[in-house]
């Protein structure tokens, strides 16, 4: 089964600094990749998705991700974070099955 690995369980960063949340996937076939954000006491919100085409994907709230097939990575980036970006971020992969296979999540903590 396809899987993703989120390499960092927690990422502390200062406000207005850039951030990168890492995600690697395991697959030998085509994959569909997603990043979701979960704010405290809320459900999951889709940030962006990679289905095909351009490897640089732009999402909501100023986030973007780059699909790198040779490195099997799909890292999430933001050039300047805000306090309000503090949340849990999940990378997910979906192949031919019904399920979204989530990574364990990365907790982003933005401090002043």
């Amino acid at each position, binding site marked *: 089964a396809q899987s993703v690995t989120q390499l960092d369980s927690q990422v502390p960063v200062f406000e207005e600094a850039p951030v990168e949340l890492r995600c690697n996937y395991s697959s030998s076939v085509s994959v569909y990749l997603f990043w979701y954000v979960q704010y405290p006491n809320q459900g999951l919100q889709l940030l962006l998705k990679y289905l095909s085409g351009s490897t640089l994907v732009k999402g909501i709230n100023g986030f973007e991700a780059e699909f790198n097939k040779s490195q099997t990575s799909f890292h999430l980036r933001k050039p300047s974070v805000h306090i309000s970006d503090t949340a849990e971020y999940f990378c997910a992969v979906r192949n031919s099955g*019904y*399920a979204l296979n989530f990574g364990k999540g990365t907790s982003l903590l933005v401090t002043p």
Partner: protein
Amino acid sequence: DTEVTQTPKHLVMGMTNKKSLKCEQHMGHRAMYWYKQKAKKPPELMFVYSYEKLSINESVPSRFSPECPNSSLLNLHLHALQPEDSALYLCASSLFTNSNQPQHFGDGTRLSIL
């Protein structure tokens, strides 16, 4: 604003109670899902409905009983739950069950079993 609406937001119940969770979407999606999320963990798939028919049951105990009355509604009936069933229950929907269709999540029902 989420386009998938879940009620109630919070539910506390005893182990002998019967209760139901409700999920509603009006995006015309034909696939709907139930996930269970424990604290500090990713969501885990429980059930998948496609065109109002149950497609996937991920070996979920029978004390959880899903129901899809129509294309916009998804229920999860609960009976004789255990304390370890306390979790956030998330509903999601997608246009179809095709792999490239993103799933849209509700805000969940936080369930506590006494």
